[in-house]
């Protein structure tokens, strides 16, 4: 009985790693949900006037959605690293757990904030679609400027996770 409990007990390291993965998915996902929501509200306004702009507005709306994907991706890399996807979770020391947790932070927080602000930039870009649809690319570029920081955070997170030896 005691042995069985031990087998299923979660070590602190494992918990911290999972927490990191969870936060990456959580925060970046929340950010994207808010960002896509903001952009979607603006998009609906434009489409009320001219339903043929659905495609263009959808493109702009999709932009703040990438942070959530980056978060999921980071979470996945962590899950793969600690072996939870295969079902055999590896022994992880507390130190390594903390390291993985720290590594998840850049994409978690930058993902959260940048998605929201990118959503606002996208929403403003909807105005371009409404008045000068041929200049859509400029609206996309403004939104993409914000995404840069999410990309950098993703890179930092992934490089850190790759760099941790467990």
């Amino acid at each position, binding site marked *: 009985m005691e042995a069985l409990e031990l087998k299923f007990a979660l070590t602190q390291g494992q918990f911290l790693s999972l927490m990191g993965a969870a936060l990456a998915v959580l925060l970046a996902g929340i950010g994207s949900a808010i960002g896509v929501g903001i952009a979607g509200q603006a998009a609906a306004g434009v489409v009320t006037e001219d339903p043929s702009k659905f495609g263009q507005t959808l*493109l702009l709306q*999709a*932009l703040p*959605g*990438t942070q959530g*994907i*980056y978060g*999921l*991706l980071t979470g*996945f*890399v962590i899950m*793969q690293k600690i072996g939870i*996807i295969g079902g055999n979770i590896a022994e992880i020391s507390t130190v390594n757990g903390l390291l993985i947790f720290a590594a998840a932070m850049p994409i978690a927080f930058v993902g959260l904030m940048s998605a929201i602000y990118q959503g606002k930039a996208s929403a403003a870009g909807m105005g371009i679609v409404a008045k000068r649809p041929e200049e859509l*690319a*400029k609206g*996309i*570029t403004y939104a*993409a*400027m914000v*995404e*840069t920081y999410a*990309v*950098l955070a*993703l*890179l930092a997170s*992934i*490089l850190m996770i*790759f760099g941790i030896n467990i």
Partner: protein
Amino acid sequence: MAIVDVKKMSVIALRRDRSKLVETFQKLGKVEIIDIRDRTSQEDWEKLFETQESARVLTEIQGKLGEVQFALDFMARYAPAKKSLFAEKPAYGEAAMEDLSRSEELWAVVKECRELETRLNGLRSEEMRLLSTVDLLKPWESLDVPVQELKSTEKVAIFTGSLPVGVVESVKVLLRDKAPESALEVISTDRELACVLLVYRKSLEQEVSEILKENSWSKIDLPQVEGTPAGVIEQAAEKQKEFERIRQEIADRAVELSAQRPDLEVVYDYYNLMSGRMGVERTAGNTRETFYMEGWVAKPDIEKVKKTLLKRIPEAYITFNDPDDEDDAPVVLKNPAFVEPFEMITDLYSPPGRKDFDPNTLVSIFYFIFFGMMISDAGYGIVLTLLGLWALKTLKPKGMLKKLMGLITLGGISTVFWGAMFGGWFGDLFNARPLWMNPLEDPMSLLVFSFALGIIQIFVGLGAAAYKNIKSGNVLDAVFDQGLWAVLLVGLIMFAFPTLGGVAKVLAIAGAVGLILTQGRSKPNILGKLSSGILSLYDVTGYLSDVLSYSRILALGLATGVIAMVVNTMAKMLGFNIIGYVLMAVALVVGHVFNIAINALGAYVHSSRLQYVEFFGKFYEGGGRTFNPFVVKTKYTNLMSEEEF
């Protein structure tokens, strides 16, 4: 590099040939019309030319176009067009189109659509009126007196009105005390107000009105209807059913009428063509027998334009001149087939100015590489290439769409290459071995490689800036502003290689000193020169962030790979029995399609950004105006030409 000269064409011809000339221009599609009215004052114009009759014709055509458009929209509301996006448009000759535009049957259809719409509008306003009556009568539903009978008589006053719920009882008491010959009946109450019927003897007017005033009575005028409120409401419901029936009738008729849609679409295109032509004819300056027109023509097309025109209208007189500096001449680009799709990227930023140089060749090379690396999955590359080729072949797109499809095709090819290099074939689905390296195992090397690509592009950008300076005769600017920076940057980069440390130091210091001495050269005094020189070194951080920005190439490449891996892992979890295998296949297809879509968008956006911010920032200004020739524009049909153009 590849900016083609444009010439200004001036045409003088006989007035009777005017429509024919404009038609020729439209079908040739190689002339951008200049509206000479823009640079002629009203006064001069009236002195030089006769007044136009074409304005009236244009309004007439646009009116007809509007009517046809309305009929098409009306039909679309009831019978949405079920046209496949990929169906080829039917081809019509101009004569056939013209015949259809005169068809009385079609115009009857258009007229009927208008009538149906008028009926619908009438119906709608009547319904609104009815609904508001019902709304007003609703609280009085339990009143079993016909509304028209609720009128004061000679001696008795009858009123409907409302009182706050709380005071009803006390008002009743007050009335009983002070005005015994009165009655107050509550018909209905809601949360705040009670609707009441008040009857009293007119001689008690004063007492009653005093009580009412103190208790916030407000009089309600019932709508002028016949019958009891309940009866009227019931009738309204009947009427509404009737309206619904009429509406259905109209909808059915609209569906019947929409059988004529294909022909109406042809008529629409015909008037669209005509309105384009009339718009151009209006720009002509007319004299009694002749007219004068101008347009831009790209130099390589001049011979063709001239030959076609003179063949059709031998009495025309045409000259071609170089544009003046104050002319707003458009920019025509001529690039090889590989570069052409990438013009789209530059055009979306800003097309090159007439005297600028065309960056598209450079853009095409870098964009091609970056796009592929950002997706970096050979399987996805194959999908994109096939998609692009298929669209080019079946849709036969023109203009921007054609360039976009070309971009997808070329980007797909690059993606196949990089995917094979990095071993991504639909992620890790086939466990293919990378030809070069696996970015997931050794991301640092790829990061350095991305930076290296960035450094190359930045140096190319500096080179382009230097080239522009030298071409415009500012050799010293090229040496100081680009040359010295290049020296400093090369020095800094060499620090990364320990064996070159000595040379690196010399180069970096030489570059830095050179910049301090030269960057403030436009400042008036020595102090200003020195301080702006020193401050300019701060731009090093700009170059650093430029280079770091290229790390997105690695990041997006990794993202594609990892998401593909997620899709594969999840899908494989499903595959444990027959149904599972089917689900697995579905999950794989859906997952990978999603991944391709999101990453192709990402690759497009971020490759563009690297061109716009990091590359164009070094040298490119743009500000040109794209050549916008007068062409045949049809929405539903293809125009067949009887003659070769």
